[in-house]
């Protein structure tokens, strides 16, 4: 069976767990713990290891969804889970402090996965800020990394339909990159689409 392994990353409170719950066709495996740091995100629990969900695209294709903890103190989990992943769905809450800088910081953190497969950015809670920030993100990314193409969409992490659009955008990017690499005979590195 062919499978895609997708990582859901982004700061605490961006909606990673909600997004995986919205998308997954199986009961999500969660590792929630009581949140001691209510100043960063005022929510009762936080993910401390991973979230795991699955989507079956067809009989022969499956998408595995792994959410990583948002806090940098858990960055060893980012490394562990990134080894198997082929793309990152990066969620950033638009109402956080310095969301654009945060998005760029995460893109840099997971840049190896951009090169291997792809990254898309989902801007959550965008309705809570005075205006859409998509152009700001696009401009900031273009300034910081001129040769990098990363789609940015506003999404509601709780919406299955909107998250599926974002996920399919990422998978299309990954497949395009793999097709280009195949056509010129260059591998895209480990962690690509797997068959077993």
């Amino acid at each position, binding site marked *: 069976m062919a499978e895609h392994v997708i990582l859901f990353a982004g700061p605490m409170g961006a909606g990673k767990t909600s997004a995986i719950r919205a998308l997954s066709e199986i009961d999500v495996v969660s*590792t929630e*713990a009581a949140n001691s740091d209510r100043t960063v995100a005022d929510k009762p629990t936080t993910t401390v*290891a991973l979230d795991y969900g699955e989507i079956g695209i067809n009989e022969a294709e499956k998408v595995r969804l792994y959410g990583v903890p948002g806090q940098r*103190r858990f960055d060893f989990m980012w490394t562990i889970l990134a080894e198997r992943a082929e793309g990152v769905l990066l969620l950033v809450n638009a109402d956080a402090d310095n969301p654009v800088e945060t998005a760029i910081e995460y893109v840099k953190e997971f840049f190896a996965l951009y090169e291997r497969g792809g990254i898309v950015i989902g801007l959550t809670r965008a309705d809570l800020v005075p205006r859409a920030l998509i152009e700001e993100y696009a401009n900031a990314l273009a300034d910081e990394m001129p040769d990098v193409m990363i789609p940015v969409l506003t999404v509601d992490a709780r919406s299955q339909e909107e998250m599926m659009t974002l996920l399919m955008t990422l998978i299309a990017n990954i497949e395009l990159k793999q097709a280009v690499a195949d056509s010129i005979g260059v591998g895209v590195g480990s962690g690509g689409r797997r068959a077993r």
Partner: protein
Amino acid sequence: MTLAPHLDSKYIVRGELALGGLRDLAPSLRYASLLTEDGFSVVSVAGKEFDSDRFASMASSTQALADAVARELQLGDNEFVIVAAAHGHVVQVRVDDHPLVLAALFTDKETIGISLTAARRTARRLNTLLMAN
């Protein structure tokens, strides 16, 4: 707003007391940490070569993963976690009634049974200390 355990002197002082007793119970203790279940170090003893924040984060993830496995397999509540390696082992137990985990690293000179007994006894003692006014 309630003060988080890693910022609360009650937890820090009583945690230090309990962890000090753990070393008496198991002399091969290399390092011990009391941490919040979301990975903040409350207090740690011995093992200055370890990064207390990183140890606490990893112990938090390990605990949550073990809890998830027990839950997924419908085994009931996870009672403890043991990571046994060639040169030592880590034992983790929760502190009842508090969002806390005790994680302790022992050398291979200690048997896992003694380490586990010592860690459980320490967690119970800490629970008693925290109940007292």
